[in-house]
């Protein structure tokens, strides 16, 4: 009986989800001592708040690879639709690709329906995808936007559960940020009060959580439009460097030099051109 590999299935019959064909090989490799490559995580503090006229989203800007800061100013608030943005915590690649994918699907949906997309639609697309992958896609998201139903805020966990709430925090700095939220959030806040609350909540994460740091990004979404306030606050400017570390010419020793001519230069008459 001939064995059939998964690639020989016609596209319509191919099962979805992850292929686990490499699982055995990975186990053998790690039992022989090969290190498993680690995905970049964002550490992260992300928050969202519903106020009188819309939604305010906030995020820090540090991306970590273990104990090392990989990116000091990355963007964690992703565009989903003209009326919706999504903060992402967890595995950086997962949040990036997941939000791009759903944004793309939503645009096609918008063209097909001829209407402004609803926040619940994006939420449903995201949760169904994340549940399908059983938590293997490490994306913890805060989705906020304004549509015909008004301003809405959702938190979405990697396994696919969702919560509809007036204020949410996620990421390793979520406890620090939530302490600020619980102390200061009130219903029907004004715009600047909401922005100040988000700023303070993110700062709590930046200074008290080692996985979060650098700057505060804020995005304000109202029925009228969106204000992307990238680097709204920069409370962590770099310490001034005291020394000058330029290298003089000749610091790197030239050991051998080899010069090859690519063309042969020959003196002669100019070429005739028709």
């Amino acid at each position, binding site marked *: 009986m001939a064995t059939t590999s998964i690639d020989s299935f016609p596209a319509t019959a191919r099962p979805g989800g992850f292929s*686990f064909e490499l699982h055995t090989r990975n186990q053998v490799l790690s039992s022989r001592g090969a290190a498993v490559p680690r995905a970049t995580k964002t550490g992260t503090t992300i928050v969202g708040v519903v106020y009188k006229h819309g939604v305010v989203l906030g995020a820090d800007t540090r991306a970590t690879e273990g104990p090392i800061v990989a990116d000091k100013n990355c963007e964690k608030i992703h565009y989903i639709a003209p009326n919706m943005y999504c903060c992402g915590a967890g595995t950086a690649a997962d949040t990036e690709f997941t939000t791009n994918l759903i944004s793309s699907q939503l645009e096609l949906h918008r063209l097909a329906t001829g209407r402004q997309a609803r926040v619940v639609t994006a939420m449903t697309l995201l949760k169904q995808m994340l549940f399908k992958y059983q938590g293997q896609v490490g994306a913890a998201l805060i989705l906020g936007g304004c549509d015909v139903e008004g301003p809405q805020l959702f938190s979405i966990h990697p396994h696919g559960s969702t919560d509809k709430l007036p204020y949410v925090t996620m990421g390793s700095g979520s406890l620090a940020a939530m302490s600020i939220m619980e102390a200061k959030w009130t219903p029907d806040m004004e715009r600047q009060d909401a922005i100040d609350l988000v700023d303070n909540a993110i700062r709590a994460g930046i*200074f008290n959580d*080692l996985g979060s740091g650098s700057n505060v990004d804020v995005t304000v979404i109202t029925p009228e439009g969106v204000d992307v306030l990238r680097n709204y606050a920069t409370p962590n400017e770099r310490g001034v*460097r005291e*020394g000058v570390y330029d290298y003089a010419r000749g610091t*790197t*020793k030239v050991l051998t030099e080899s010069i090859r001519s690519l063309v042969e230069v020959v003196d002669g008459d100019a070429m005739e051109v028709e």
Partner: protein
Amino acid sequence: MYSTPSTAPIAAAGPMQRRVDPYADNGGTAVAIAGEDYAIIAADTRQSDGYLINSRYAPKAFQLSDSSVVACCGFYGDATALASHLSQRMEQYQYAHDKPMSTPALAQMLSNTLYGKRFFPYYVHNILAGVDADGKGCIFNYDPVGSFERYRWQAAGSGVALIQPFLDNQVGFKNMAQEANPPFLPLEKALQLVKDAFTSATERDIYTGDQVEIFVITKNGVEKLSYDLKKD
């Protein structure tokens, strides 16, 4: 894709073994440079556990006498216990020999103390700094069980991989077309390098930050300087 249900019998609950992990990694970084007539040793003051900060001011460099300072990076419980133990032994030495313990003598004693716990180690990476009998700066680098060697520059702790190559290049002039035996640096230049090393390590290492304490040891005694670092 779906595994067959296991048919192995469930083991009856038998003798169990509980384990407590006696160590923790509290992070932090230390740097030391030895000069012609001085030694500088610096350590940040952040103490952390995972993603949490336990303290923004928990000094890691301990002044043991007018001529010696030791910095201990790793498990803070063992760092304080070791510093306290060394301090007591130095006092006993003073009474027994009617003179303070010199830095090279302390260096050997620290090594012996660490090896004494070879089978339940002090979970710390130590750097000892001071001036030797000739008044020249000396620093000694240790592993957790007491292996030590005298160096002219060394880093330790969570930021070691970020700082050591910088020091190798700027203090030792490695990988540059320079003479084989580099001259000693003047004190101001060494201080500037240490400060820049810490501001740079703070940028990229989450366990380094808050404040740095720099000890300058000369034959006249020990001077302590403090600088703020980023707190994020």
